[in-house]
């Protein structure tokens, strides 16, 4: 019964991660391409590059999410998969930087005068990377905690 419950939880969380790391970002960039593409300095190749990295990392994160959330609570397996997931999450955020999605340049025309507005969010991505580093520390702490207190966790699980 417990394993079925874990599987269902794993599938639900995988669906959540597929939505948040693949579907929503891809829809956002598709909308940007369709409605603001003419004003952006992004080529079709740039969009394909962004879509490729979103899909690649999104699938790996979602796969990890399944193994993380379908594992029993406070198990070493869960700790290891959660750790791998956070590492891949970091790479996912970093992929926004090297896929060229951190600087958006909008070309504009104000009453016959041409101009542009460029927004660079690279610094923001780096701050999020810092927060992810704290999460990595927390996941390492979890693995150590699960190994040291293995017996106590098992006893509590049996109760």
């Amino acid at each position, binding site marked *: 019964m417990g394993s079925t419950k874990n599987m269902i939880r794993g599938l639900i969380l995988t669906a959540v991660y597929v939505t948040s790391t693949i579907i929503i970002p891809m829809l956002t960039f598709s909308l940007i391409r369709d409605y603001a593409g003419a004003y952006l300095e992004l080529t079709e190749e740039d969009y394909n590059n962004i879509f490729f990295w979103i899909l690649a990392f999104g699938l790996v994160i979602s796969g990890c999410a399944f193994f993380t959330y379908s594992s029993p609570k406070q198990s070493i397996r869960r700790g290891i998969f959660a750790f791998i997931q956070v590492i891949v999450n970091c790479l996912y955020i970093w992929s926004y930087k090297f896929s060229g999605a951190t600087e958006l340049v909008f070309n504009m025309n*104000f009453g016959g*005068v*041409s*101009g*542009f*507005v*460029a*927004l*660079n*969010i*690279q*610094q*923001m991505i780096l*701050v*999020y990377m810092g*927060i992810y580093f*704290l*999460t990595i520390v*927390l996941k390492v*702490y*979890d693995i150590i*905690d699960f190994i040291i*207190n293995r017996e*106590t966790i098992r006893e509590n699980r049996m109760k």
Partner: protein
Amino acid sequence: MRASRVFRLIVRIFIFLLSLSVTVVSILGGYSAVLILNPKEENISIDTENSQFEGLSDFIYGTGDEINFSLPFNFTNAGYFDLENFHFKLEIALNYSHVDNPNETIETEIFNQRQYFGDIPQGEARSFVFFADETDFLIENFPNATTEINWFRGPPALLFYANFTVSLDYSIGLHSIRIGVQHILIAQFP
């Protein structure tokens, strides 16, 4: 609950609050950019009507050796955070036709400078003057008035086009924004 889990919970709450505040700052920063760039509010205005370009004609003719250029502009920080590292970059190109090839138009860069204007606190409007003199101009790029410029093209024989770029950091440095206006005719001569 085990003591190790209590400690973990505290760290997790801290990380949650940290990511929540960064997200809120990011959203407000993006919205501030929209407020500042709102075309109805004119938060960024370059006062080309009151700009002064003194001594240029004498300099080109070789009868003077001083150029004074000033360009007033205003910036209103209509967003939620202070603006940092406010820079204004001006590029001026001289457009003329060469005596040897009158049908061809040549555009040469005679000015390229970026000036720092500090920070603008949230909600404040500031007026600045971009000033430059002959030492800031790219003298070596000026065409020779007698042997190179085709004065029969015009009037005007000389056209001065400018690119303006405003750059700044926002949301405690999380966003960097550049706003540019390109190829505006700022002067013509004679």
